[in-house]
C-alpha cells in the first residue's frame, strides 16, 4: 500500500511539473517527506499571501472530533497574483480537500500536491491563462 502510494505520488508529481517560477527558495525534498503522504479535508482559517511561499491554514477534524490546524505551503503569492488570483478568492470558511506531503519534523505542516474545492474544481488552477496546477503546489 505504501509502495503504491509512493509510486502514484511520484508519477503525479512528475506529471504536474511545469513552469518553475513558483518554486522554492529552499529544497522541498529537504523539508518534506515523500514517505509521509497526507490527505486532509478541512476548513480554511486563513491564507497568508506571502513570498516566497503562501500558506493556507486549515482546521482539520479527526474521527474523535479533535480539530488540528494544518499549515499548507503553496506557491509564491506573486505567482498566484500574476495569474489573477486575489485575497478575496479564498475566504476563511472555505472547505478544501488537500493532498500532499508532511514535513519531516513531524509538525502539522505539509507541502500540497493538489487542492480542490468541495465540488472538485482545483484551487489556483484554471486561471484566465490556462490550468497551472504547479502554481497551487509551488512547483
Amino acid at each position: 500500500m505504501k509502495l503504491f502510494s509512493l509510486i502514484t505520488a511520484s508519477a503525479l508529481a512528475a506529471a504536474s511539473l511545469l513552469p518553475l517560477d513558483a518554486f522554492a527558495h529552499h529544497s522541498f525534498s529537504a523539508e518534506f517527506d515523500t514517505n509521509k503522504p497526507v490527505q486532509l479535508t478541512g476548513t480554511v482559517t486563513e491564507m497568508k499571501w506571502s513570498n516566497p511561499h503562501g500558506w493556507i491554514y486549515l482546521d482539520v477534524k479527526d474521527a474523535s472530533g479533535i480539530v488540528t490546524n494544518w499549515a499548507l505551503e503553496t506557491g509564491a503569492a506573486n505567482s498566484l497574483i500574476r495569474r489573477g488570483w486575489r485575497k478575496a478568492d479564498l475566504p476563511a470558511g472555505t472547505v478544501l480537500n488537500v493532498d500532499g506531503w508532511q514535513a519531516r519534523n513531524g509538525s502539522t505542516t505539509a507541502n500540497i500536491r493538489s487542492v480542490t474545492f468541495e465540488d472538485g474544481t482545483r484551487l489556483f488552477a484554471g486561471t484566465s491563462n490556462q490550468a497551472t496546477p504547479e502554481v497551487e503546489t509551488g512547483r
Partner: protein
Amino acid sequence: MALRCLLLSVAVVFSSLTAAQDLPRTATGQPDLGGIWRVQNRAAVDLLAHAAAFERPAGMSVVAGGELPYQPWARAQQQQNFATRAQTDPFAHCYLPGVPRIMTLEFPFQIFQTAENVAMTFEWQQVFRLIHTNDTASLYEGIESWMGHSRGAWEGDELVVTVKDFNERSWLDGSGNFHSAAMVLTERFRMLDADTIAYTVTVDDPEVYTQPWTMSMNLYRQQELDRVLEYQCQAEKEEANGAFEPDVRNWYPAGIPGENVAFDATATSGLPLPQASAEIARLPDGTPDIGGYYMADAGGANYGLEKSAGGALMPPARGVVVDPADGVLPYQGWARAERNDRILPHRGYDDPTAHCFVAGIPRSHYVPSPFQIVQTPDHVVQLFERMSWRQIDLQRKEHLPEHMRLWQGDALGHWEGDTLVVDSRNYNGKAWLNEAGDVISHMATVRETYTPVSRDRLIYRATVTDPIAYTRPWTIEVPLDRLQDELLEVACLEDNNDLQHLRDVRDEFRAAQPTTAE
C-alpha cells in the same frame, strides 16, 4: 532696509537660476538624480526632535510643525511601540524598512535614472525601489507590500512620486511612529544644486492621523563613494549568532585544497558567442537597449546545472552546461562529494536562499524569479524580485581590493559589439549555485555575456573559473525573455516559515550522529 531686501531677493533669484542651469541633466532634459546619496540627520531614530539616549543620537524634527497629528488611539499605539521597540521594531528583525524610512537611513543609496524609471539601490539589506515614470498605471493595484508601489512624473524640474499599496507592518522611524495600509505618500525630489536634493514627503493616512503632514530633508551626494556596497543585515546577524555556519573550504579566504588535481585554465570547447540580431532596439547612443522585465527560461537550473530527472519533490533539470560539451560539471573530487552531500535533507538548511540571503551570481538569474534591467550610459543595474540588486559598472576599470568580498561580487562590464560582457570577482564564496547544492567558491571569477538574439530575448552565458572546486572553467547558457510585466515584492525573511523546519531536520540528523571520542 528695503534696498537690502531687494538685493537679497535678486541674489536668491540669481543663485537659484545659476543652480538650475548648473544641474546635471539627462538626455531628455530632466535633472539627473543619478549618483550616491544619503541624509545627514537623525530622522531614522525619530522623525521628531529628540534628546540623546544610548545608541540613539539626538536630532531635530524633520516634520513641519514639529508634531505628528495622531488620532488619539494611534498616539497610544505609538507609545506602546516605543516602549517595546527592542522587540517590535521591524527594522530590528532586518525586515524591509518601507518608505519613507528607507530614505532616512544612514546607509547610502544610489539612483539610476532613465526615461522609463528611477531606480534606487540601497546598501541596507540590498533593498531597491523602482519608480516607474513612464506614465503607466500599476498592473497590481491594491496588492499590499512593505515598500509600496511607486509611480512618478516630472513636474518641471521636480520629480513627484506617489507611493501606495502598503501593508501595515513597517514603521516610519525607530521610535514607533507608524502608519496603516491606507497610507498614501507624495514624495518630491528637487535638486537644489548638483550635490543636493531637497526631499519632501507628505503622509496622507486618515486611519492613523487627523490630517496629512509633511517631512522635509536634504539628500547629499556622497562624493567619496563610487559605488554602494552591501550590508546584508540578516546574513550578518545569523553569521554573528551562529545560525549560519561558515564553510571553510569555499568561503574567503580558503586556499586551494592540497588534494586538488591541477586546474587547467585554458581548457575550453571554443564555443562561439551567439549571433546578435539586427532587429534589436537601441538606445540613442547605439548600444542595444536591454532594459526591462526579464524571466529566465531556466529549465530547472535552480535544481541542478547538469541534466537530472528530478524526483517527487525535486523538479527535473534539462541541463544548462554548454562547456564542457558533455554537460557534466568538471568538479574536483571533494567538491563533487560535497555536492552529493548537500542534496541530502539535513543539508537543506545550509542553502543560503533558504535563509532568504542573496542568491549570488549566476544563480540570481535563474532562482527562479523575475528581474528588471535598468540601463544607463554608465551602468547596467539588475533588480532581482527577491529583493537584491547588482550594479554592473561600465566605467570603472579596477576591481575592489582583494579582501573586499561581496555576495554578488564586484561586476565590471563593457560592450563588445552588441554583447554585454561582464567580469565579476571578489565573491565571498557563501552562495550555492542552486538547491541541489552545486558548488562555487570565493575564488571564482565569472565572465558573463548577454547577447540580444531577438528583440525580446537575451542569451545569457556565465563562464565560471574556480580553481578551488573545479578542474577547468565551465559555462552555462540560459535564455532570458523580456516580458510585459512588472516586479512585485518578495519579503522573503518576513514570512519564512520553512527555515525552522529545515533546521529541525538538520538538528535531528546531528543528534543521531555518534559523538567523537576525545
